[in-house]
């Protein structure tokens, strides 16, 4: 039942573009604040920084769309950087797919635990976060693992045409592939139904459990791929390398307007959300906001952005 106050509602057609509008507004505001912001160099830097975040957020978006949450993505990505750095000398080019496969498996295992043991995804992945962080520390010997020969992952740190970071292009490809696969198959209906109303989805014969495990599996794979990007950029793997990406990834998802309660949203929205979050991180210092105020501004803008992008008519209960 939709019993929401009709005080603040935008026409349906506009709300779909709100994340994009928020992004453009932010770029415009940063440019006004400092005309030098809008240079090729800072945009390239922003895109390069955003790439792993986009991939992480895109994967976790699927879990959120199913009505769950994946808190383990950043820890899993950190562990994956360590594994990749350790395996590169022996496996070479195969190390990348191997790491992504392992990460996907770990994601799927968490999904299975959530579905079979009927534990809330919040708890399962909170446990996963802790376990994976510890495993990363153990296998890395609690230190950075240097990559001597990065020839097989270096391609991700190149620039297309000298300007466009390869990692950003690949992040875009990941988002596009997920979005297209969802749209052209019944998966989108299944995921939405599961997220909006699990009981209704189940009684309609939707493979709810399979969909959920699949979402966790893709979320894991994305964490693995984000790790590859990080390693290619840093020439090393570290047990806490991606840890600080968890909250930005969650912020990216909600700033994009995906409902944290499930059902409503898309990976495109998370792409826009990740860019907004990154631009704030990178842009605020560039335009000369003092670091003490930066955090305040960041927090305010995130909250305002969610207020603008969340389509109230589709989400009846805001938790």
């Amino acid at each position: 039942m939709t019993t929401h106050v009709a005080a603040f509602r935008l026409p349906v057609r506009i709300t779909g573009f709100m994340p994009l509008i928020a992004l453009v507004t932010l770029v415009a505001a940063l440019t006004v604040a400092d005309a030098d912001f809008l240079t090729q160099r800072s945009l390239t830097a922003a895109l390069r920084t955003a790439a792993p975040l986009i991939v992480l957020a895109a994967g976790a978006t699927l879990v959120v769309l199913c009505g769950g949450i994946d808190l383990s993505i950043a820890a899993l990505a950190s562990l994956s950087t360590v594994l990749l750095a350790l395996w590169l000398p022996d496996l070479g080019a195969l190390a990348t797919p191997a790491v992504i496969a392992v990460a996907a498996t770990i994601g799927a295992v968490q999904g299975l635990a959530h579905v079979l043991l009927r534990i809330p995804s919040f708890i399962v992945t909170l446990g996963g976060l802790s376990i994976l962080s510890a495993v990363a520390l153990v296998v890395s010997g609690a230190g950075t693992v240097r990559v001597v020969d990065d020839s097989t992952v270096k391609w991700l740190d190149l620039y297309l045409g000298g300007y466009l970071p390869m990692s950003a292009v690949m992040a875009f490809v990941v988002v596009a592939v997920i979005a297209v696969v969802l749209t052209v198959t019944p998966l989108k209906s299944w995921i939405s139904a599961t997220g909006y109303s699990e009981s209704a989805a189940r009684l309609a014969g939707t493979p709810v459990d399979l969909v959920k495990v699949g979402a966790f599996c893709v979320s894991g794979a994305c964490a693995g791929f984000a790790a590859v990007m990080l390693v290619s950029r840093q020439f090393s793997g570290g047990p806490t390398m991606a840890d600080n990406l968890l909250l930005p990834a969650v912020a990216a998802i909600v700033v994009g307007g995906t409902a944290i309660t499930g059902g409503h949203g898309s990976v495109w929205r998370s792409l826009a959300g990740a860019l907004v979050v990154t631009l704030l991180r990178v842009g605020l210092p560039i335009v000369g906001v003092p670091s003490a105020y930066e955090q305040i501004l960041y927090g305010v803008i995130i909250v305002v952005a969610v207020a603008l992008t969340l389509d109230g008519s589709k989400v009846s209960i805001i938790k």
Partner: protein
Amino acid sequence: MSVPALEVRGLVKHYPGVKALDGVDLVVRPNEVLGLAGENGAGKSTLLKALVGLVAPDAGEIFVRGEPVRLRSVVEAANHGIGMVFQEQSLVPNLTAAENIVLGSEGSAVRRGVYRWDTMRRLAQEQLDKIGSDIDPLARTDSLSFAERQMVEIAKVLRIEERSQHPPVIILDEPTSVLESKEIETLFAQIRRLREFASVVFVSHRLDEVLDVCDRVTVLRGGQSVGEVATAGAVPGELHKLMIGSTGSDDHYHSGAASLVAAEQPRLSVRKLSGRSFQEVDLDVAAGEIVGIVGVHGSGREDVCRALFGAEPTTAGEIRMDGKKIDLPHTRAACAAGIGYVPAERKIEGMVGAMSVADNMTLTKQKARCTGPFVAPKKQATLVDRWIERLSIRTPGRDTAIGRLSGGNQQKVVLARWLVGGDIKLLLLDHPTRGLDIGARSEVYRLMRELAGSGVATVLLADSLEEAIGMADRILVMSDGRVVAEVACPNGGKPSPLDLVKEMV
């Protein structure tokens, strides 16, 4: 004549594609029970929501005791003495009845932020006394029966009397739809008691109830008030005529279309099926046959229905479809076997409110809209439009969110979900007409007949005994989880409700 307790003049409310209210007028006099009748989509829900401040009208005026008011929230409405008992129960299950009653208007029950249990209990008791209820205010809400919870809900709404310092206007939206007949009588006694110090607006789809308990009925159609009937001496037919704007069908249950059941191997054959709340249930349904299962609350019939759809575990027994033994470990297995299920809780379990008509309709039979593994948008559009037309589903379009449709049209989409695949063999209908008006009911009945005619076997858990008798070819009576009687129910030889009640208790 005294000033009306509540008056509505020319209320208008537009939604995208729908004019929900089109200049409604309504007068509620002091100390009267006013009935509100109208088909689904007539604007009843919107009007009620406007009266408690949940919907802001586009035009028109609301007067409380002669004074024009603007109601912007439930709290403002309560301050003016208007309160509503919601269709979906709005109590917090793990709090006591007393806590629920004072929730949101704690007043002197809270001092310096701390609950004063004695005061709270006294305040709650005052409300319960008003309706002469003997419910223990300190009982946990989830330990109460459904009917008792409704009493608590009414008591909660009565708190507004102290708040507004005036006789309250209490709105009851479909209060009887989930009550058993004895509970309904208790509720009606309460309503008559309420009338002594309050005005009541009563909404129900059951016209006999409306006529029974109300002093006067206002009929809505197409967002307008089309008539007013004094209930003394009125008959349901009269009201129905006003509601639909013409005479109703003489043959409500379309029994003329009743199928001839060929005696052959049953489509569904259940032997000694046992589960948590039912034991050794035997059930046969032939192709084209409609079998009703009746029983009081707790008879286990709902669970049998769910078990046949793989949504409730079974411990023993055997299910055969067309003679072949099948296992139903989950709902997907049932879907694959050609079994469809329409749950009683349409809004929660039957449909996904935020998703479109098209997506809801094709949610189960994905193959019907796909080419290979891919969704074919054109195929889906053609398919969905065909069913929208066939079932005359009133919707602005196939992409409209199903939650925006009226109940009857929602239910048709939910039914269509099982039909689009063209492979449906057995339909399990759990209260398929709950909350639907007469017109929509009649259409659902017609559809059921049509499906039966095409060979679909149907298990029906009817909304009322009359409905079971009217629709079913055969009726099983369940009590305490067992089938205790089977009553033949052929056209021309229908049993009376009394015959069934005798078996039920």
